[in-house]
């Protein structure tokens, strides 16, 4: 039986600076999701090296990766990925639960971040009682609750109407101004152009890199 090795990413060399806002663009199947999984420590590259804060991630154990995701990275997904059984506040608390924070300070911190994304009075609502835009704001609050340095957003406006999309993009922009590193994955040029730098990936290779206008 012959084996075909599929290289999702091939010879990618990339450096992202602290506090930068970068967009990664590319058609579906181009490898941008794989890149995001590696950057987000959800997966480890079979070959090559990934340094995060000058530490080589490739050698990390499963538990250490969990810890890094918990401490340093906040995810925002296209489909929000909220837990349907938990209300908005409990969803925001999630990363804090795995930090062994006590229930009281958890709820307090989560409430602060819900207020930050403009959902002060929505904490008790379940995700299915919220609009798409609101759900994505809950997801952003969840990503922020652990106060990570990096926000990884995978098509955050993909499932939203344009008005909600603009709101979400504004929030991301504000976060970048506060000093967070934002990595945005999208195939929408208009959205991508908000970043400082745009990276094009085609067939697993970085084909073009340019500074946004």
């Amino acid at each position, binding site marked *: 039986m012959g084996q075909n090795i599929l290289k999702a990413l091939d010879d990618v060399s990339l450096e992202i600076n602290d506090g930068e806002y970068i967009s990664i663009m590319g058609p579906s199947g181009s490898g941008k999701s794989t890149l995001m999984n590696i950057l987000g420590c*959800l997966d480890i590259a079979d070959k090559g090296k990934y340094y995060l804060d000058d530490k080589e991630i490739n050698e990390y154990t499963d*538990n250490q990766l969990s*810890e890094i*995701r918990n401490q340093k990275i906040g995810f925002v997904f296209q489909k929000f990925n909220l837990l349907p059984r938990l209300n908005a506040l409990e969803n925001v608390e999630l990363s804090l*639960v*795995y930090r062994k924070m*006590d*229930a009281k300070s958890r709820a307090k911190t989560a409430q602060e971040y819900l207020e930050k994304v403009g959902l002060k009075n929505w904490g008790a609502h379940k995700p299915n009682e919220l609009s798409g835009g609101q759900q994505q704001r809950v997801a952003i609050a969840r990503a922020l609750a*652990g106060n990570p340095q990096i926000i990884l957003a995978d098509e955050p406006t993909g499932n939203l109407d344009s008005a909600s999309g603009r709101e979400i993009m504004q929030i991301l922009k504000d976060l970048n101004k506060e000093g967070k590193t934002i990595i945005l994955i999208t195939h929408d040029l208009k959205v991508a152009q908000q970043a400082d730098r745009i990276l094009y990936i085609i067939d697993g290779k970085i084909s073009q890199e340019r500074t946004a206008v």
Partner: protein
Amino acid sequence: MDIKTIIKMSLKAIASNKLRSFLTMLGIIIGVTSIIVLVSIGQGTTANITSSLQQTGSNKIIVRITNQGSIKELSYADLKDYKNIEGVSYVSPTLSSSITAAYESNSYDATLTGADENYIKINNYTLSTGRAITPLDMDNRNKVAILGSDVASELFSHADPINKVISVDGINYTVVGVLESKDTSSTGTSDDIILTPFTTAQRVLKNANISSFTVIADSSDDVENVMQNVELKLLSYFGTEDAYNVNNSQDLLDSITEVTNTLSFALGGIAFISLLVGGIGIMNIMLVSATERTKEIGIRKAVGAKKKDILMQFLFESAVISSLGGFIGILLAYIICAILSKFSISTVTSFYIVLTSFIFSLAIGIVFGIMPANKAAKLRPVDALRYE
């Protein structure tokens, strides 16, 4: 993740799928309930028999004459030999036969027992009214009867039977006494008897021989010795061991206890199998649940849950399901035992068996929860997040 959060999380997961959780629990509930109820019935029966045998005294030796392999018969006069054995307090013969007793238009099937003046005391009866058999009755072969409580109430209902004349298989007896009900009737129809002097019974039943007799030792310490001597005497008289059998209440107690204990274990064992099946049910549902919640596991891992956290979450869920099932099972078992006692089936529920079955149900939740929990914990976050 702290314990309080895990417990809250698992309760939430269980509550969000009430019907499914209940059905999963049902296996454990049935298992625990049946273990406790069956063992309780077994132990109740043992306790019942033990107490009624202990009531009759452990210094009692019962000899039954079966007459197998020997043409010799034992007569009333022969009993003197047994009375003279050292350590024997007294010997009481009995001669029994099934009869029909009648008074006016009422009739009742009972046992006519020919006995001497010691019979009532030996067999733990007490007189409710009237008098017992006297030595004079024995000498004169008086046709007097002392009625068991069932016989008295069937023949006379509320009337006073004393000095009334009843007919036993066509022969008239004067009622001189009535026995108190023995109530704990695990030994059979103890309130169904009619006592008459032994000598009277011999004449009426046209049987000069003894069908059984009871030897009472001075103390329970003497029982072993007395029993040996009684057996020796019987052997030398009949010439074969087949012609009689000798029991004391302790032997009887031991063998009955052994039988009921074996029964309890067998029943408990069958019930334990149903508990195991309940555990497999939990494993099944937890596997389904792990698959259904792949996305949730992915999300939790993305925000920083470790393998251990997911493992604990699922393990706690199955442990909570099984221990909750165990708890409900215990309550149900107590209710069933209470209902059974209303139907005069005695049950003894020991704390030990309740604790054991609860621990077993918890252990089953954990053991059968490990595989699904491990499956959930091992999921790679990338794969889990991609799952729809």
